[in-house]
């Protein structure tokens, strides 16, 4: 007994370790561990652990999947702005967006792996092509775009201190990928234009589902993704700058990006308005019931409050009004609301179509309703995947300086110097 006593004495060492940073990382690690345990359970026991059914085969996971891809749209839009429109001043924001994009797409791939019945066959789409399938096209685009994002993020990883000191040549090569940024931006734009809208078309092409069967969903998906992706980038940057000295932001740049988001939201709401209004005329079995589910049924709070009011109208007011936009707290609130709105839109789109069952029986087309509520296992794995994203971003902010609006200016100078040195050598 006497031998064990000294172990309890070094209280002074335990206390300083418990910083807010450690608490944050520790908390995320706990959720991640729980999510991983739940994920392993799903891989082991199968999808019977979910509340998914043959009537609602896609649920929470598909929403996380669609949302994380939408939230990654800041990468392609801002990279296009920087490298194709030549607006270099947004380069630092594009850098953050690229990192978020890489995280978002890996989140989507992880979720998809869980969601498909045979994760061991994930590669089948690469080998057995069905060019008729929107989902095949999405799979190919996501795979290629993940590669593009990994290349685009190379210079960010090249800035990792440990890599620089241990593998300086590799770090140098990785940062040289930056020279291909315009080409990568073109590839990223093309791939994203394809699959960001195709994710909407995934629903839009299904004739069997009258609520979905319209061309507008694909357009709405890409516009909302651009707004949501840029909003998450701005929000994450501002929050990081508030919480840690490892991040710093240029408020002028973020103000401009937020202004753009405000106008993108106006376009989104405009299309959304006509899309919804066009569905209100004449009764169509399945479609009318689906619309009622959104406007007055079980999804109506989500639709009116989360999607339209908080997700679009309030942010538009906050972002197009110069006074509220320039106040960081209001701007951050607006950005967070846009993200909530886009996620709610994905959830509602998926469920409103699935919860309505249109009968195949002859005569009067009968409509039945079903319901879906995610199981604990689905929620746990979902939370695990989200905390993986938060963890990766937090580590990126701290060790890769992904939110640093000064570092890029230095980089720009550096690359010019490098070019100046290299050109005579060629």
């Amino acid at each position: 007994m006497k031998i064990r006593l000294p172990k309890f004495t070094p209280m002074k060492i335990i206390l300083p370790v418990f910083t807010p940073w450690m608490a944050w990382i520790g908390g995320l690690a706990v959720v991640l561990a729980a999510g991983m345990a739940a994920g392993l359970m799903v891989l082991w026991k199968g999808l019977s652990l979910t509340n998914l059914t043959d009537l609602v085969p896609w649920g929470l996971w598909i929403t996380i999947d669609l949302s994380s891809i939408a939230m990654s749209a800041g990468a392609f839009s801002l990279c296009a702005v920087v490298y194709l429109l030549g607006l270099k001043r947004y380069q630092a924001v594009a850098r953050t967006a690229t990192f978020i994009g890489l995280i978002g797409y890996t989140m989507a791939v992880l979720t998809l792996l869980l969601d498909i019945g045979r994760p061991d066959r994930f590669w089948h789409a690469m080998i057995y092509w069905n060019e008729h399938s929107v989902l095949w096209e999405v799979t190919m685009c996501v795979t290629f775009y993940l590669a593009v994002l990994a290349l685009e993020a190379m210079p960010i990883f090249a800035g990792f201190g440990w890599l620089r000191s241990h593998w300086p040549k590799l770090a140098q090569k990785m940062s040289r990928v930056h020279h291909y940024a315009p080409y990568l931006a073109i590839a990223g734009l093309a791939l994203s234009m394809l699959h960001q809208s195709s994710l909407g078309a995934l629903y839009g092409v299904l004739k069997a589902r009258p609520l979905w069967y319209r061309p507008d969903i694909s357009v709405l998906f890409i516009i909302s993704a651009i707004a949501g992706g840029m909003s998450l980038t701005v929000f994450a940057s501002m929050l990081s700058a508030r919480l840690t000295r490892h991040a710093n932001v240029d408020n002028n740049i973020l103000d401009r990006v937020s202004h753009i988001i405000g106008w993108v939201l106006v376009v989104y709401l405009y299309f959304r308005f006509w899309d919804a209004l066009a569905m209100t005329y004449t009764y169509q079995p399945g479609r009318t019931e689906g619309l009622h589910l959104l406007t007055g049924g079980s999804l109506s709070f989500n639709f009116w409050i989360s999607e339209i009011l908080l997700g679009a109208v309030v942010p538009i007011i906050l972002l197009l009004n110069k006074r509220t936009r320039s106040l960081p707290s209001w701007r951050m609130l607006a950005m967070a609301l846009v993200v909530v709105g886009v996620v709610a839109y994905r959830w509602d789109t998926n469920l409103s179509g699935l919860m309505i069952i249109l009968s195949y029986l002859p005569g009067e087309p009968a409509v039945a309703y079903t319901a879906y509520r995610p199981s604990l296992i689905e929620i746990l794995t979902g939370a695990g995947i989200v905390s993986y994203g938060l963890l990766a971003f937090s580590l990126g902010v701290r060790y890769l300086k992904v939110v640093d609006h000064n570092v890029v200016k230095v980089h720009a100078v550096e690359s010019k110097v490098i070019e100046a040195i290299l050109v005579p050598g060629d």
Partner: protein
Amino acid sequence: MSDIKINRRDFIKLTVAGVTVLAGSQIIRHAQALETLTSNGRQWAMVIDQSKCTGCGYCTLACRAHNDIPPEISWNVVTKTGTVGGQDVYIARPCMQCAHAPCVDVCPVRASTYRPDGIVKMDYDRCIGCRYCEIACPYGARSFNWKQFDGPNPSVPEWGQPEVARRPRGVVEKCSFCYQRIDRGLALGLTPGIDEDATPACAVVCPVGARQFGDLNDPESNVSKLLHGRTSYRLRDDLGTSPRVYYLSATEEPQS
């Protein structure tokens, strides 16, 4: 600048490689289309006579036994739709084997394909279990294997013996028009729709002869004669899926 030149050359190389792969896949596709033309012109179809169907559900049970389907899945669903002249009317719904099948279009890995004889075939070794086909099918004809089906099949041996391999957990499955019976029967020189061993199990077991099976392209087949003589309809014909399952309505007087 040298970077850019190399990049452009590589880009062209990649493009050429990509186009070659695409063209190759198209050639394979057309080869498959040729196969369709050489299928001896057989196009299988089923005619379900609602004026005869009594809703006994034997078809579902025979289907479960012959195709080794778990009790929670039905490839063939029988539903009561109403009454005509005091008699209950039922509708049996196998897979429609659509000529323009949404499931074939949406499958990201081409696990659902058209056989030359028109049957929509599932490749259970290829299916990744994304369940997009389930969502796309207007007839609810597809079921996902949420669990591994192990243990005895309650429909065996009373309703028949399994003729196909059990599907693994995590893939979607559906009615196949019992093509294992058709193929084996044809190999033995039998005629599907006439000879029981070459006809889908549901049609064989039906105690009232409400299901007829045969070749649409053969004017002398059961189905051709029935469709020629009586008015038929197909489910959700408005969708343009062109089902190969035809229904004879119960509103007509029962005919022999």
